[in-house]
């Protein structure tokens, strides 16, 4: 008989060949775990190649998930359970497994050939090298074939169901119901009865195998997390961005237009929005990145909410047009789902190294507001804020997310649409006295007159504008004035955005300043450090341009300022330049989220120094 153990939180990692369906398996485990009511955070980690050569180290695809009975903010540093579908997956991921962690390995995949490909001289499942772990060596391929003996398909095709067998084992182990996945299989493979049968059978067989054999002695339960009441769903960053844009469009009365071009890891925004024609969403897959942003600007000029979404290399191509939107003062949301760079870099990995690109990546003085999402679900709110400020200030706005946020998932408390405020920003009307570059003194924003408005015909362009009239002007003083006005306008955004997250005392030894997707790691690290008795304060920036007004005063009240980032130190340079403080960076640029324990150690060093 197995025994049942309560756990507070668990980190599990599914790993296999990029053709083994590990992303799908991890996503299913996530969906089920969300329905069970745990808090969770995920980290898909996969190679850029669609089908890297089977069995190789660089072809390993992983999906990590932390779930818990309390609030969590990261996908976990160390893994408690590793599901390894082949030797390469074991080799690559063993370093992340904690001492005495659980390994579920597909013994059938540990052939001589695969061992060699992974660089093992002996079979680690048999040579005792995994002694410090709880090893469950299961012939998953063979058992899957046996379970599917009555299904009319080739053994090759049957082998494709082995990930469901592995998933079944983990469902038993963590006391998860099968229903969510069974239902999903039916929907996903509708019209292909043999696939429905095979995958369902494999899932059930895995579960029953774990239940019936006495290989596994313990099941684990993780209680529901205590979260605020309401209706929840699981959401990824790219989904949340897409939904936020649709809501902002409807709330502003400006139909959504997305001009895009396929690029990892931003394409999902295009895919998702393309489905919503019945929400009056127009998506336009342009011939290139430049046309993507150009069409979005054109659409905004016609009165739509123009948006373009890409990643670093694509943003580089768009930069001339973004500067054009700065000059013509046309609303535009530019989403950069950051990935590892430079150049093509690490397309499927995460990084925060495009902050400078957002700040400075244009010719001339071309300031624009920048907001960064802090978690997958926060992408919803930031997308709405970005759209709102773009419309309100007639300006391009950068929304920075990254590969981790885009593909990572967490539970999301679904808001009531009626509670989301309208975005009421008027357009100029026929019959009004109209000067294209006359500004609202509160925002310094100009009012747009869109084509179709009688009597307000006017011309805009990328040449310098004369104040008020918007006519072409080469006048030196006018240019100086316009450069200043465009900068001041961006500064005015500060008065219309929510304050940053701040915790701790207003003076002390250490202030941490973070931005974007490091939120979860910093949250956990700060929590940990405080448990150790460190008195520290933390400010997390969502809007990075303009910087929050309160920061200027606050920052000088601390002996040390630490800025953790997944880049070689970008925000830290901006902070140093802006406030003349000796801020220090903390960076690990590995294409992965920062690790909590590393940051805790770094924090400690500031206190030990004293």
């Amino acid at each position: 008989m197995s025994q049942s153990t309560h756990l507070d939180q668990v980190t599990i990692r599914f790993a296999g060949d990029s053709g083994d369906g590990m992303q799908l398996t991890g996503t299913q485990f996530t969906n089920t775990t969300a329905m069970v009511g745990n808090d969770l955070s995920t980290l898909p980690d996969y190679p850029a190649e669609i089908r890297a050569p089977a069995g190789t180290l660089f072809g390993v695809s992983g999906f990590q998930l932390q779930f818990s009975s309390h609030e969590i903010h990261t996908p976990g540093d160390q893994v408690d359970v590793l599901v390894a579908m082949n030797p390469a997956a074991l080799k690559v991921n063993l370093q992340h497994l904690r001492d005495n962690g659980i390994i579920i390995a597909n013994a059938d995949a540990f052939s001589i050939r695969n061992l060699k490909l992974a660089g093992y001289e002996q079979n680690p499942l048999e040579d005792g090298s995994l002694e410090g772990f709880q090893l469950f060596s299961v012939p998953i391929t063979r058992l899957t074939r046996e379970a599917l003996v009555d299904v009319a398909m080739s053994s090759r095709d049957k082998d494709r169901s082995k990930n469901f067998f592995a998933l079944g084992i983990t469902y038993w182990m963590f006391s998860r119901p099968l229903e969510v996945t069974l239902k999903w299989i039916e929907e996903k493979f509708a019209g292909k009865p043999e696939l429905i049968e095979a995958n369902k059978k494999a899932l059930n067989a895995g579960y029953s195998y774990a239940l019936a054999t006495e290989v596994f002695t313990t099941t684990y339960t993780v209680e529901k997390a205590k979260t605020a009441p309401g209706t929840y769903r699981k959401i990824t960053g790219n989904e949340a961005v897409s939904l936020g844009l649709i809501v902002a469009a409807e709330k502003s009365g400006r139909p959504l237009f997305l001009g895009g071009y396929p690029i990892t890891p931003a394409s999902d925004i295009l895919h998702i929005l393309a489905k919503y024609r019945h929400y009056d969403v127009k998506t336009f897959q342009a011939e290139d990145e430049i046309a993507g942003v150009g069409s979005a600007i054109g659409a905004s000029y016609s009165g739509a909410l123009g948006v373009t979404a890409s990643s670093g290399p694509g943003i580089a191509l768009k930069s001339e047009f973004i500067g054009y939107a700065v000059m013509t003062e046309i609303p535009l949301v530019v989403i950069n789902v950051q990935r590892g760079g430079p150049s093509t870099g690490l397309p499927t990995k995460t990084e925060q190294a495009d902050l400078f690109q957002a700040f400075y990546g244009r010719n001339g003085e071309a300031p624009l507001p920048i907001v960064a999402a802090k978690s997958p679900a926060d992408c919803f709110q930031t997308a709405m804020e970005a759209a709102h400020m773009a419309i309100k200030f007639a300006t391009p706005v950068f929304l920075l997310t990254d590969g981790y946020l885009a593909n990572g998932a967490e539970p999301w408390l679904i808001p009531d649409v009626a509670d989301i405020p309208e975005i009421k920003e008027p357009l100029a009307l026929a019959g009004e006295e109209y000067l294209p570059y006359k500004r609202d003194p509160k925002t310094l924003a100009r009012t747009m007159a869109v084509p179709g408005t009688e009597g307000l015909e006017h011309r805009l362009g990328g040449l310098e504008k004369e104040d008020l009239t918007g006519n072409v002007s080469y006048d030196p003083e006018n240019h100086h004035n316009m450069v200043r006005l465009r900068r001041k306008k961006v500064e005015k955004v500060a008065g219309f955005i929510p304050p940053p997250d701040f915790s701790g005392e207003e003076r002390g030894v250490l202030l941490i300043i973070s931005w974007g997707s490091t939120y979860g790691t910093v949250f956990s690290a700060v929590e940990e450090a405080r448990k150790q008795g460190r008195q520290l304060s933390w400010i997390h920036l969502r809007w990075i341009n303009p910087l929050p007004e309160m920061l200027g005063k606050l920052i000088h009240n601390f002996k040390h300022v630490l800025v953790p980032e997944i880049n070689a130190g970008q925000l830290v340079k901006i902070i140093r330049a802006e406030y003349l403080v000796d801020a220090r960076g903390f960076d690990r640029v590995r294409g992965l989220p920062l690790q909590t324990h590393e940051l805790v150690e770094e924090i400690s060093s500031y206190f030990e120094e004293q």
Partner: protein
Amino acid sequence: MNTIETLEQKEKKYTKEDFTSDQEVRWCPGCGDYSILAQMRRLLPDLGVKKENVVFVSGIGCSSRFPYYMDTYGLHGIHGRAPALASGIKLANPDLTVFVITGDGDALSIGGNHFIHLCRRNIDVTVLLFNNRIYGLTKGQYSPTSERGKITKSSPYGSLEEPFNPVKMALAAGATFVARSMDRDPKHLEATLLEAARHKGTSFVEIYQNCNIFNDGAFEKYTNIKTRFDNVVYLKNEQEYRFGRENDKHLFWDGHRFRVEEWKATEKPLTHTTDNLPASMEFALAELSELEDFPVPVGVFRKRQAETYDALLTKQIEEVKKSKGQGDLQKLLESGNTWHVD
């Protein structure tokens, strides 16, 4: 055309002054651009659209100053990218009448990619390509339509490049209206532009435009009234390919290529058709401008009805709405698996 529309137009009868902005025109005196501007201002009253629904979009170059001189909506864009702006403008508001003003460098060099994809998609905009075979605004470098061997500042020993043939490109890229006209033939220009503007779908007009500063006389052979008729064959729907001062020559199609022959009235003379010319003839006709001893065809090469991208998009939206119902935001947010916490 129904009577209501006609009445409305009567009420709103514009003159060319209505389309003239208060900005001083800043092209070099004698530039061919003036004529194009004048014809555009003249034809717009006849187009029968409200001027607030007209948008001129341009790129960068001498020609691209054009929108500033029209009292309509206008966007002076960035180099080569006018088609991208125009696509977004038209797709966001299909009621607008959108013109793209571009040049040989703008459309065929830096903006080549956008240009061909605009044609391919058949978005309902009208493209005017001012071809002067030179970079004017940057003061005289060879362009993608300059002839091989051309001596310019950037090709002091002669350009090494074969020029593009803009009409051939537009035809190959799938534009549904393709024509050529000339700055110095104002009547033909006005009529061609009007026909282009009326066409639903991507309309392309190559306009031979003289840059009297950096490439004077590039089209003299065709535009000078003394030599024009021996060097130009005007394309007219349902009419023979006749040309010559005495109208005494014509183009004969031998099944493979065109030949210039003396005109003889025959029983079944070959006539031009704009909506279903075989590809081989269409292409051969476009190629004549590159060949010695042939007249340059001026007029409409192709005018074909086909569904426009903008109309298809509108239709698709309606269809999805019909099958799925108008979207409901709350339902959208709650899509997928949800769970409730009390």
